[in-house]
Every structure is written in C-alpha cells, then in structure tokens.
C-alpha cells in the first residue's frame, strides 16, 4: 500500500512539473509573437550574438600570429575585397554620369531605402542560414537581397515572420542567384552555393569570354534583386569540351561570419 501511494504521488509530482515546464514554454512562445515580447527577445539575442562574435574574433587572433602567412593572406584577402567593392563603386559612378537620370531614380528606389537589421541568430556553418531582427512589419519580403559593407551580397531573404526573417547565405546549397560580369547587364549564369569557401557559377554559355579575377555581380534577373551587387571574383574557369556550358569557381569577397549588421534591399520594382 505505501509503495502504491509512493508511485501515485511520484506520478502526480512529475506530471505537475512537466505540465508547468511546457506551460511556461508555451506562455513564452506566445509572448514572443507579440511585438513587445519579440523586441525583448531580439534584444537579448542581439547582445548574445555580439558577445559570441567578439569571442570568435578574439579566439581567431589568439591562434593566428600577425606575422604568419595565413594572417598576411587574410589581410590581402580583406584588401582585395575592399578593392573589388571600390572598383564596383567606381564603375557605378561612371555609369551614373552617362545615364544620370535613370540611376538617380535607381538610387532613390534602392540604396537609400534599404532596411538596416541586426543578425540575431545563426544556424551551424553547414546550413548557412542566419536570422535577422526585421520582418514583414518593416516591409521585408521573401527573395529580397541582403547586402553588407560597401554593397557586397550577403544572401537572400528566405522566410519572413512579422518581426524577424531568415537569410539564406550565398554559400547555401539551395542558393541560386543570376549573375553577370561587372559592366554587362546580360545574365551569363547562376551563382550556386557549394560546401566550402568557393561558390560555383553554372550554365555559362560556351561563347562567353570569362577570365580569372573578373568581378561577378547580380544581373537583376527575376526582379527581386537589384543588378550590380558584388557577389565575388572569378577564381577559375572550368571548360569541358563535351559539356554544353562552362562552369566557373567564384570566390566571395567577404567572410559571412564577421558581419553583425546587414541591409535588406527593396525589390527593384517597388521599394520597401
């Protein structure tokens, strides 16, 4: 009899405890769907993310000597990224002088009206998806381009809730962005994410003249991403005689892990 009483009491206590556990979780989940609740959570997540990223940067410095070859390579890579972005800007300004009317309109609709957002969570590097603290309330829509720094493509909006969105990075296996060579407007291929550092540009017609270090930008095909956002540089061109298309390895101009703030661009045809 005491044993049965003990078992019944134990079951009652455990059931109550698990009920409270799930009750609190459901309550918090419901709260997180209100604007005030979401803001609180995003604030906490933003601070945690910044702390994690700062620790990551410090750790990288601890294990990388300033004099080592890898440190020098990193510096050169960063300088290359900056130079590529600057040359992209210079070309954009050149076009501005010749087609000023169209480009002033373009700037009004795009670069000036983006929505700044903070990265608040990140999936594991293999999944290449991050969460930002802006959502449909801020006018963000699926497929919009997300840029960092001086106009370098970070990724594309994947899913949107009222107060947050997920960004599919360019390195994501499902990412396919129409690309062009800087200075042309014709789409020459699709830039696809691959496991590893490099991206891959597929379906390039055999007649295309492509050289290493050419700058690859978005072509604007599809209507959701502006043209001229820098994706990377051509690292290698792979041509198989029997294949109908060329393939190129694209080196991104930035490291996606170092950014904490991004700019979500509006759709070219409507704006945010």
């Amino acid at each position, binding site marked *: 009899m005491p044993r049965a009483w003990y078992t019944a009491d134990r079951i009652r206590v455990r059931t109550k405890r698990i009920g409270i556990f799930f009750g609190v979780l459901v309550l918090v989940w419901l709260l997180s769907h209100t604007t005030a609740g979401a803001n609180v959570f995003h604030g906490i997540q933003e601070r945690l993310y910044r702390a*994690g990223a700062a620790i990551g940067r410090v750790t990288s410095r601890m294990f990388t000597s300033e004099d080592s070859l890898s440190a020098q390579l990193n510096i050169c890579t960063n300088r290359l990224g900056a130079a590529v972005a600057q040359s992209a800007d210079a070309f954009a300004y050149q076009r501005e002088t010749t087609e000023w009317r169209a480009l002033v309109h373009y700037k009004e609709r795009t670069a000036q009206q983006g929505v700044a957002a903070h990265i608040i969570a990140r999936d594991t590097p293999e999944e290449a998806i991050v969460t930002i603290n802006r959502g449909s309330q801020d006018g963000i829509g699926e497929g919009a381009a997300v840029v960092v720094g001086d106009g370098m493509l970070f990724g594309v909006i994947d899913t949107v809730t009222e107060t947050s969105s997920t960004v599919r990075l360019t390195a994501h296996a499902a990412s396919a962005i129409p690309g062009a060579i800087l200075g042309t407007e014709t789409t020459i291929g699709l830039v696809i994410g691959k496991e590893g550092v490099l991206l891959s540009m597929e379906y390039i017609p055999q007649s295309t003249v492509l050289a290493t270090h050419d700058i690859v930008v978005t072509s604007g095909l599809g209507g959701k991403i502006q043209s001229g956002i820098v994706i990377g540089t051509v690292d290698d061109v792979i041509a198989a005689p029997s294949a109908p298309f060329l393939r190129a390895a694209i080196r991104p101009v930035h490291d996606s892990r170092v950014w904490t703030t991004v700019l979500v661009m509006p759709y070219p045809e409507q704006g945010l």
Partner: protein
Amino acid sequence: MKTGSILACLFLLFLLGEASFIHAFPGILSHIPLMTIAGMIVMQRVGMEEGAAWFLALALFHSDISALCIAIIGPILITRLFTTRSVYALIGFGISAYSAVLLIALIFPPHSVTAALQSELLLLPGLLIGISMVRFCERSLFTRIALRPSS
C-alpha cells in the same frame, strides 16, 4: 512548481545561448551541443521524465528528429543500462544516445554527418564540464535553499 519553472527558464536560456552565442563561435566550437548536454544532465540528475520533456520540447522548437530520438531512447537507457548517477554512467549515456543521433544523420540525408560527428566530439568534454558545474551548484548554499522541498 519551482523545479518546472526553473527547468523552463534554463531551457529558454540555453536555447537562446546556443542559437545566438555558441553558433557565432569560429570553427568547430560553433558545434557545441549545449541543449543536448543540458538535456542529458537533466535526464540523469533531475529525472528521466523531465529529461524526455526537455528533448521533446527541443524537437518541437527545432523540428529536429534527433532530439525526438533521444527523448524516446533516453529513458530506456537511463532505466535499463546507466542506472547510477555517476559520471561514467552519464558519459556512457551520452555516447549511446549520440550514437543513435549519428545513425539518424546517416539514415536521413538532410542531416549533416560531419556536423553530428563534430558535435559528438564536443559532447564528452561538454558533459564533463556540465556535470562539474552541476555538482558545484548542488553543493552551493543558494541552490540548497532554493530547491529545498517545501514542508
């Protein structure tokens, strides 16, 4: 009431910590399975029902089949194989449960086997550090007062 609320708060804290703090770390450190480590310690130290609830909630939040797998096989392992509350039992439980997760990663293609292996590599030191922290907390005066059963 108290234990349930504390567990829920810890669950949320670790959930935010893993998604926003741990995943921002560089390289392999971003694979530290914080929620799994905490869940396993809860399952061994607090109770298998609470641990199963932890992994069930994790499976619901992340739509993760591997957490559901641990929620199912965890109580069986705890009651049949690793019955003591020793560190060795916890390590054994961790390895066994995570082997099942690896199996799931191999069977279901979207799951990354490399990521699962890296997580398993970090699981053991994580469990050791975690259990040391739990033991320290259990000995501290504050915890003894906070978790004292109400008479």
